[in-house]
């Protein structure tokens, strides 16, 4: 049968009407792996979804991208919800995506890593942006679910450590679609309405990766980064790491740990401060005691004592010198007397009287001088012979000149 030919545009127009009036194709959810992901400068996103046997082009409009809770990346499996749309000009159709969900730890981890990488490169995790958590805040805010375990734990710990710090709980959803939006808004609101808050805790108790996902969403990360009030991120247990943890000023392993971190223990501080005061008093007392000692050390009495000491010292020195001089003198005297004794003994040996004992006499001339030679005399001279027990006055009768030992007569003398 002959059919009347139609134009290409008419055909595509017809297919478009058929496809887009189909109730199933108007709201379809498709599972597949992302590939050829492209972010266009207009803000729209183009990618392909595929399985082992087939693939389909996908389009994600910039308006819808804002509601996507995951950072998309090639290779992860997603569930995309949307409708089939036909481009008449190109004669091609695509899935026009309204919503994307990601399931499974592997896929979620891939999306997590992708966002972490992106924000890290932007510098959102840089140490230089980290604000210090005040040591003793006056007021803290807690952004979490008002019915969760986290808020109970935090209030319990705060109360047990500190009865001074004010706590403002700002309730919000912490899981499911819309949670990230609420958390981000809460952070902005606390900054706007309660600028006096010194620090805030943003977090929740433990849960599955899906349940904690709000804290892995870009919108929350951006709010934390923009906050002027320092933020402690406290999500799940110590093994859970979220994007919030990386961008926050400080990560706490758990909400309980965050509470311990943000409020100081008042009892311990009281004790520390008291110890410091006692230390101060102790040092002051010691200083005064020392000063006192220095003052009394310079009183008249102390000076007198010190003067006496000096006098005694000098007196002892004089005494010692005196003794030394006397000792020296005595020893010199001893030396001299023994020397005199020695000389006297020598003289004794030469005493002429000793010879007289043996019968010799000394002959003196008329003037009383020791003669020593016959030449000194002439006949008729008088002489004196000195003997051991008296003197004899004699007259020279004859002089014979001879030498000793040469005359027999002489020997008779």
């Amino acid at each position: 049968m002959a059919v009347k030919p139609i134009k290409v545009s008419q055909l595509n127009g017809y297919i478009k009407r058929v496809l887009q009036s189909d109730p199933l194709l108007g709201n379809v959810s498709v599972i597949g792996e992302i590939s050829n992901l492209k972010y266009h400068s207009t803000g729209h996103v183009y990618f392909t979804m595929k399985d082992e046997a087939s693939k389909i082009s996908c389009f994600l409009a910039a308006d819808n991208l804002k509601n996507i809770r995951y950072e998309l990346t090639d290779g992860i499996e997603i569930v995309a919800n949307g409708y089939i749309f036909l481009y008449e000009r190109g004669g091609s159709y695509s899935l026009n995506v309204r919503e994307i969900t990601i399931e499974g730890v592997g896929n979620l981890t891939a999306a997590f890593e992708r966002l972490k990488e992106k924000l890290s490169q932007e510098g959102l995790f840089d140490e230089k942006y980290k604000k210090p958590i005040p040591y003793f805040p006056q007021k803290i805010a807690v952004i979490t679910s008002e019915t969760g375990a986290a808020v109970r734990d935090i209030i319990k710990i705060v109360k047990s450590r500190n009865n001074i710090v004010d706590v403002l709980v700002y309730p919000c959803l912490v899981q499911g679609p819309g949670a990230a939006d609420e958390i981000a808004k809460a952070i902005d609101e606390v900054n706007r309405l309660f600028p006096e808050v010194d620090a805030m805790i943003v977090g929740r108790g433990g849960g599955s990766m899906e349940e904690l996902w709000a804290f892995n969403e870009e919108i929350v990360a951006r709010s934390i980064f923009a906050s002027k009030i320092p933020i402690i991120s406290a999500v799940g247990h110590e093994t859970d790491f979220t994007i919030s943890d990386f961008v926050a000023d400080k990560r706490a392993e758990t909400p309980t740990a965050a509470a311990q971190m943000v409020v100081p223990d008042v009892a311990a501080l009281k004790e520390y401060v008291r110890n410091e005061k006692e230390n101060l008093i102790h040092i002051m007392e010691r200083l005064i005691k020392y000063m006192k000692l220095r003052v009394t050390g310079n009183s008249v009495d102390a000076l007198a004592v010190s003067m006496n000491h000096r006098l005694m010292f000098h007196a002892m020195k004089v005494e010692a010198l005196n003794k030394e001089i006397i000792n020296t003198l005595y020893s010199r005297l001893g030396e001299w007397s023994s020397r005199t004794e020695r000389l006297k003994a020598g003289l004794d040996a030469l005493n002429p009287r000793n010879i007289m004992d043996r019968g010799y006499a000394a002959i003196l001339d008329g003037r009383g001088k020791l003669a020593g030679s016959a030449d000194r005399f002439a006949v008729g001279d008088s002489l004196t012979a000195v003997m051991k027990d008296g003197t004899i006055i004699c007259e020279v009768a004859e002089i014979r000149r001879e030498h000793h030992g040469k005359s027999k007569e002489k020997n008779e003398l």
Partner: protein
Amino acid sequence: MANQKKKMSFEEALAGLEKSAEILKKDGTTLEAAMESFEQGIEYYNYCNDMLNDAKQKIEFFEKKEA
């Protein structure tokens, strides 16, 4: 002075207290300087102590309707 003290944080007061003790301990501190830092230290102590005994904690839940 009193006004300035109002704004002083606990941390600053505590640091002041610790500093006073340090100055006292230093060799060659004159008696006058020592007395002065002692008095300052006691003031810092009183300030810290007042703060630590100011048990007026308020725990409240924000009502979103207000905002």
